[in-house]
């Protein structure tokens, strides 16, 4: 039986259908989770998709953290549930404090929609284990607020604890410089494109793996990220009774 994975739908989500499509291709049973619901319907993992949750007029993701569904997502994450935030979903996770750091406006203060290359820093996480190698992986970004920011101590801690999940890389596959406007177009500090929370069960990234999950779309190199989540969720679902018993 396919594993059930929830996709949160805020009124301004606009990558929900794309994410549902990519999850289904990876063998999951996607379940829509409406922003007003306080229960996650027993899903084995949650994806916060891209979009403009509640219009994002004040700041991306700032309103969404107060929604009923996000209270449920926070509790789920606190219990060790797998949560992946993509683009606006990453912004919402950061605003909710479920992952460290903040996403500032792109360095050039303009929305940017283009292909980037990222590399996985670790292949032993629930979100990357199906990747054959670190990459580089080609996939699109599409955001106005994607410049990853945290204070130097937090950044050092993230590096030390192995919680930098993805970095923007240049043509040689090396981490892109902060002022490399081509490889690191939003100017993210230390070229960070994705991070993990301290327990390793919540991840956020700015690029869109769901838009790079079929060869016809120009790249299928994001599919393994989605597949990693689906496989991890399936394992978590089967292990669930035991996990409850030990808590």
């Amino acid at each position: 039986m396919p594993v059930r994975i929830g996709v949160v739908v805020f009124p301004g989500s606009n990558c929900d259908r794309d994410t549902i499509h990519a999850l289904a291709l990876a063998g999951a049973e996607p379940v829509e989770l409406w922003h007003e619901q306080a229960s996650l319907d027993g899903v084995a993992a949650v994806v916060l998709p891209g979009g403009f949750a509640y219009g994002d007029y004040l700041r991306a993701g700032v309103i969404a953290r107060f929604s009923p569904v996000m209270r449920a997502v926070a509790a789920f994450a606190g219990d060790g549930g797998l949560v992946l935030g993509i683009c606006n979903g990453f912004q919402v996770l950061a605003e909710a404090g479920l992952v460290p750091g903040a996403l500032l406006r792109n360095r050039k203060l303009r929305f940017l929609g283009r292909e980037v290359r990222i590399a996985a820093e670790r292949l032993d996480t629930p979100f990357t284990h199906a990747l054959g190698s670190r990459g580089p992986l080609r996939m699109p970004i599409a955001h106005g607020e994607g410049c990853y920011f945290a204070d130097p101590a937090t950044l050092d801690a993230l590096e030390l604890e192995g919680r930098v999940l993805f970095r923007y890389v240049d043509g040689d596959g090396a981490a892109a410089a902060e002022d490399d406007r081509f490889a690191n177009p939003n100017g993210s500090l230390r070229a960070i494109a994705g991070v993990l929370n301290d327990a390793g069960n919540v991840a956020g990234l700015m690029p869109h793996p769901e838009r790079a999950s079929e060869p016809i779309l120009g790249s299928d190199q994001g599919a393994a990220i989605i597949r990693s989540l689906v496989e991890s969720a399936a394992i978590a679902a089967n292990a669930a009774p035991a996990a409850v018993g030990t808590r």
Partner: protein
Amino acid sequence: MTVAERSVEPLHRRLGLTDDELDAIVDRVGGRDPNDLELAMFSVMWSEHCSYKSSKPLLRTLPTAGEGVVAGPGENAGVISIGDGLAVAFKIESHNHPSAVEPYQGAATGVGGILRDIFTMGARPIAVLDALRFGDPGDARTRHLVDGVVRGVGGYGNCVGVPTVGGELVFDPSYIGNPLVNVMAIGLLEEHRLTLASAPGPGNLVVLFGSTTGRDGIGGASVLASATFTHDDPSKRPSVQVGDPFAEKLLIEASLELIERGLVEGLQDLGAGGITCATSETADRAGTGIAIDLDAIPRREPDMEPFEVLISESQERMCAAVRPDRWEEVREVCERWGLPVAIIGRVTDDGDLSVTSAGHELARIPARALTSDAIVHERAGSAPPHRRAAPAPGVSIDPSDRLPERGMDPGAVLLALLGSANLASRRPIFEQYDSTVGADTVAGPGRGAAVLRVRGTTRALVASTDGNQAVGALDPYLGAALSVAEATRNVSITGARPLGVTNCLNYGDPTRPEAFWQLQEGVRGLADACRALGVPVTGGNVSLYNESPGGAIAPTAEIGVVGLLEDVALLVGPAFVAEGDEILLIGEVTPGLSGSAYAALAGAAVEDGPPGLDLAREAALQAGIREAIARGLVASAQDVSGGGLAVALAEAAVWSGLGATTRVAVANSPAVELFGESPSRIVVTCQPRFAPALTLLARQHGLSVEPLGTVGGDRLVIELAGAGATGAAEERGSRIADALEVPVAALRHAWDHGLPRALGWED
């Protein structure tokens, strides 16, 4: 005019209605004088923008019938069946005047308005293409407009989650005071969900949902889009509508859910003319009337006058005809999406649009008097005294150098063209748009037609917008016909069959005989080209009064085409594919440099006229390339257009990173061969083993084929050979070199950096 004189000016004139039009209104309301509110409603509905009163007689001449057409002109968007119960809805529309006043909101609401036209039909919007035209890119005002318009298109489209997959950006001095913002949207629907904009069934409820009604955009259509622009007119600023893409996103989802659940009998978006337009049009289409309860309309601010409520163009609103027993479900859907919803009236059987407030009837007008029976003007057009005609196809020209070729290095010309504002890479613009949301974009902006796969099928939709104002300025008939030829060709060279045409006709003041003649000629060119190429016109928009103190714009027939590719696996792109592939030119060069990018660059007065267009040859070319692609013979296919053959080869090289070694026979002037823009030509590459079959197939279609050379290396080499370029350059009395050789990296550099440099943007 003094203040005193202005104050005695009768109301109808102040509202922009002529005395003749007032007489016609009296006639249509039963011989009485209309009251002020009724007059205001007529003034909006009889504006050029809403009534098409000048263009309607011309538009009737367009071919509208075609294979699979489900809905044509007169509906919110054209709809064409694509098989398996699916259909595509598409339309292009202008938002020129609002964008000139307030570029961000003008462009943003242009996107919002055209998206509503699509989802009103029951289709989910899947793509936007924006065709933008501005004055000199070095001009400070132009730079302000470009920045605002691009941010507006992106700010709206990115948020609603519809990818911007293509379009155009053109600079031409004629647009200096009057930019063009033409936006095309495409949607996909299950055919049985097709919803029409009508209000059937007397007794049904008229329901308004979406944003509340405010004072923004009062008379936007009638004031802004239906009169010539003058400088410094702050009174027009409040007429610009203000968009809210988040509200639009909610409106899309709520509308599609209402349609999917069968809860509405008819649906109409509110655009120009606001509530007056939406109610009168839907009643007229259904042969019913609508009684509006003015007090029930949710408002954004207090103390609005009745006319303000009825003609406000507040954005993100929809109007539905709903059976009384469905009302509760409709309300529930709207409220779940967070949208205000109200019953604002009832469908009646009296054929009238009536307005009541606090028990008093404020207005009663036959619905059709506002819409289908609005006044039509038979305008007179006359050609300007000196007009250049295109040379007839096949006529040879004087081989002497007409343009300042002397001393020019063709490699330098090619680099200058590639780096010019009109031909350089559009990446700095389109990377501000989300072109991949929806996860259906197979080919996005930047190189040729846009391609979107249709999920769950093998098919793909292919779309292109094209307009040719440079030739249009010299010959408006030819400019329009060339635009149709280029847009359909861009679709055909991917392997797709063009399904239909939508058009945005941008012209000047129709009461000026020369401007009206340009419109007449444009429509004639559009009609002839569509007939010859076998594509129906399924809708569009006419934008007149595109004039500023600097003069009228160049006549611009902007053409949008949607095509269907049966098997997306057979898709062919314009970039070179592999080293060793053979390069062929299908189609013949014809003389004429006027209107070309080369002529604009060389800055010389050209007397040879623009190149001619042979529509039968164009049709054969497109049929031939589609067949060759379907048979798997073609590796790449690139249209020869702006900048001519040399630029077509250079682009294919830049996009692939592969060079080419070619030899071009020069029958005429080298400038015509290298940089001439005569239409109906395609640069095709194929594996060497397919070249004989491809050549044979082209000849069977009556097309000429010339082998040009081979793909490979890191340089583009074009050797000039033949009568026009034999022997030493001096022998021709010209110092033009006989070969062009430029590294692909240099071509790429010129192409990449041209636009930021032209606009003064940080590169």
